[in-house]
């Protein structure tokens, strides 16, 4: 009874941990088994019956499904998944922001009808504000902008290569070319600063304040 009740509980917890590697599940099981056994034995020494001691120890561990889910959510596997989704999400945001800044800048400067957004100033401003708000929410959530600098440099290199290959460099007057690049660079610097601000961790007392 004693043994089978504990193992049944551990089975129920382990069912929630199937995404973890086998060795990690086994390690958790052994650790919890030892802990539960120690708790049970301590109560038995105080005169509790074996059944009561086991049940009280299991209650102390809580509902097995909930415990399993919380263990999974706090595991290194879950942390890695959150980091990867953070990199991907933030990279997509930076890329789309850069494209939007470039197109709107070029359109505004040269009146090119390549993007409808850029031909109407209020629409362009609204679009950029919407993008910045989305970035602010994402930045607060992922708090991870490790590749932002690399992405911006790679983007500028690709943009320059694209402009040379399409002949835009030769077609534009030097002042227009320098002006366009200056505005793109200013836009990217501004977006980087906004991202840094929106993505910084909230401080004050959040790490120690009661969660409830």
């Amino acid at each position, binding site marked *: 009874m004693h043994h089978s009740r504990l193992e049944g509980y551990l089975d129920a917890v382990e069912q929630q941990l199937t995404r973890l590697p086998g060795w990690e599940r086994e390690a958790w099981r052994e*650790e919890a088994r030892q802990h539960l056994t120690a*708790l049970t034995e301590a109560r038995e020494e105080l005169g509790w019956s074996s059944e009561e001691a086991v049940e009280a120890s299991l209650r102390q561990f*809580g509902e097995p499904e909930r415990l399993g889910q919380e263990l999974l959510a706090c*595991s290194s596997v*879950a942390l890695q998944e959150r980091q990867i989704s953070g990199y991907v999400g933030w990279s997509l945001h930076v890329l789309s922001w850069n494209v939007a800044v470039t197109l709107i800048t070029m359109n505004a400067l040269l009146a090119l009808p390549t993007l409808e957004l850029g031909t109407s100033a209020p629409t362009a401003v609204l679009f950029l504000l919407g993008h910045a708000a989305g970035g602010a929410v994402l930045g607060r959530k992922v708090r991870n902008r490790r590749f932002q600098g690399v992405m911006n440099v790679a983007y500028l290199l690709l943009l320059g290569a694209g402009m040379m290959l399409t002949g835009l460099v030769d077609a534009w007057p030097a002042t227009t070319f320098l002006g366009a690049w200056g505005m793109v660079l200013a836009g990217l610097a501004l977006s980087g600063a906004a991202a840094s601000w929106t993505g910084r961790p909230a401080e004050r*007392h959040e790490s*120690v304040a*009661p969660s409830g």
Partner: protein
Amino acid sequence: MKPMGELLKGNTPTLILAVLAEGPRHGYAIAREIERRSQDALTLGEGSLYPALRALEAEGLVSSTWEVQASGPSRRVYAVSESGRAELAKRTRSWRSFVRAVEEVLTGGEDAPQPA
């Protein structure tokens, strides 16, 4: 949940780091040490202990090893890392500042106007 339980839940990682700062311990010993130090005012449910340990380990604040026992099976023992000690110092400062702020509110503050 009782108010004390709510307070405990948000601060479990800090309490674990504080206990481990004194030396490596296994999970059972961590829970009992928190109870002992708080004179049983804080009873840490094992259901919150292990998720907190996993999170601390995933963040690199705590490491664990399986220690071979002279008798009986190996036990998983946790130890605080250097970054864990730094994090504990930071959390301790924040907690003290938080307690001071709450105390100020509860007592009306140093410069509180006297009631008429």
